[in-house]
């Protein structure tokens, strides 16, 4: 029972944490982020299973996390209004070549970050962008003027 409860607490904590850190942090996976990911996994594991080395314990821990993941996914699917709370909503950050500063600030995205993401999509100039949308995953989608 203890592992299931711990699994629920850890899942809820991580879910809320991922929602509050902002999309900016979710989108990047720089070398330092990978190191953080490993440290995070290790720290969470200690609190989750502690000194339980049993197969039953591992199945309970993984099963709890998986069940909660499916549960939240179902809630997202079944209740669209809940989706905006659980997953957030896309955010328009460039319209007609003009960055929307208020929305960029909200997600702590600088013009340099935006230009870098655009370059990754083979877009040299921000003026060429019709729409740039920060998705709920933190990734930025670009729609060029020529494609719009």
């Amino acid at each position: 029972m203890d592992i299931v409860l711990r699994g629920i607490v850890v899942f809820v904590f991580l879910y809320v944490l991922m929602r509050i850190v902002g999309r900016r942090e979710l989108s990047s996976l720089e070398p330092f982020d990978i190191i953080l990911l490993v440290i995070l996994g290790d720290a969470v594991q200690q609190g989750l299973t502690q000194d339980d080395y049993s197969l039953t314990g591992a199945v309970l821990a993984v099963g709890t996390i998986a069940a909660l993941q499916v549960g939240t996914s179902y809630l997202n699917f079944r209740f669209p209004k809940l989706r905006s709370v659980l997953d957030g909503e896309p955010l328009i950050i460039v319209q007609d070549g003009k960055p929307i500063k208020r929305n960029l600030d909200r997600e702590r995205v600088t013009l340099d970050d935006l230009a870098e993401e655009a370059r990754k999509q083979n877009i040299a100039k921000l003026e060429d962008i019709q729409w740039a949308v920060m998705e709920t995953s933190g990734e930025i989608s670009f729609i060029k003027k020529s494609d719009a």
Partner: protein
Amino acid sequence: MADVPDRLVLKRHRDLTGVRHRIWIRRALLLALLGFLIAGLVNVFGQRPHGDVVDGAAARFELYAPSHLRGGLLYEARFTISAHRDLKSAALQLSPGWVEGSQLNTIEPSPIGEASRNGDLLLTLGHISAGTTYRLFMQFQINPTNVGWGRRADVTLYDGATKLAHIERQVTIFP
């Protein structure tokens, strides 16, 4: 103006109508997280030890141990008895909260006797000469599944049947 991408609504996804307040919820939650971390820094969740001292006519008795702990933690409790006069048969009586749901890894130096007194743990230390100091170390580890709030973990110093000093304390064990 070019068409807005499908499923996007300018009022909501550009102007943030109806969702503008959410940034404040996010900031409040971040602040709560920060508060939690600060609480950790100032020892709300353990395991920094602190001292309790009782100075009586017969002896000065000091306990140095943490009272806030977490599951799985290794910690030490140090008992220091400075005898003002000869203690013929010093003994420590510990509430069950000391060992409930915990591993008692070692006691150094080993007491000359262990017994139960009214459900408490009684450790007989023996003779302590006037002017000398007796120091007892106990090493514990909290069982990972052990959780407890305000659990009694008193300790009393006796000389034979005579009560010399009593330290009242509670232990909180966080999950």
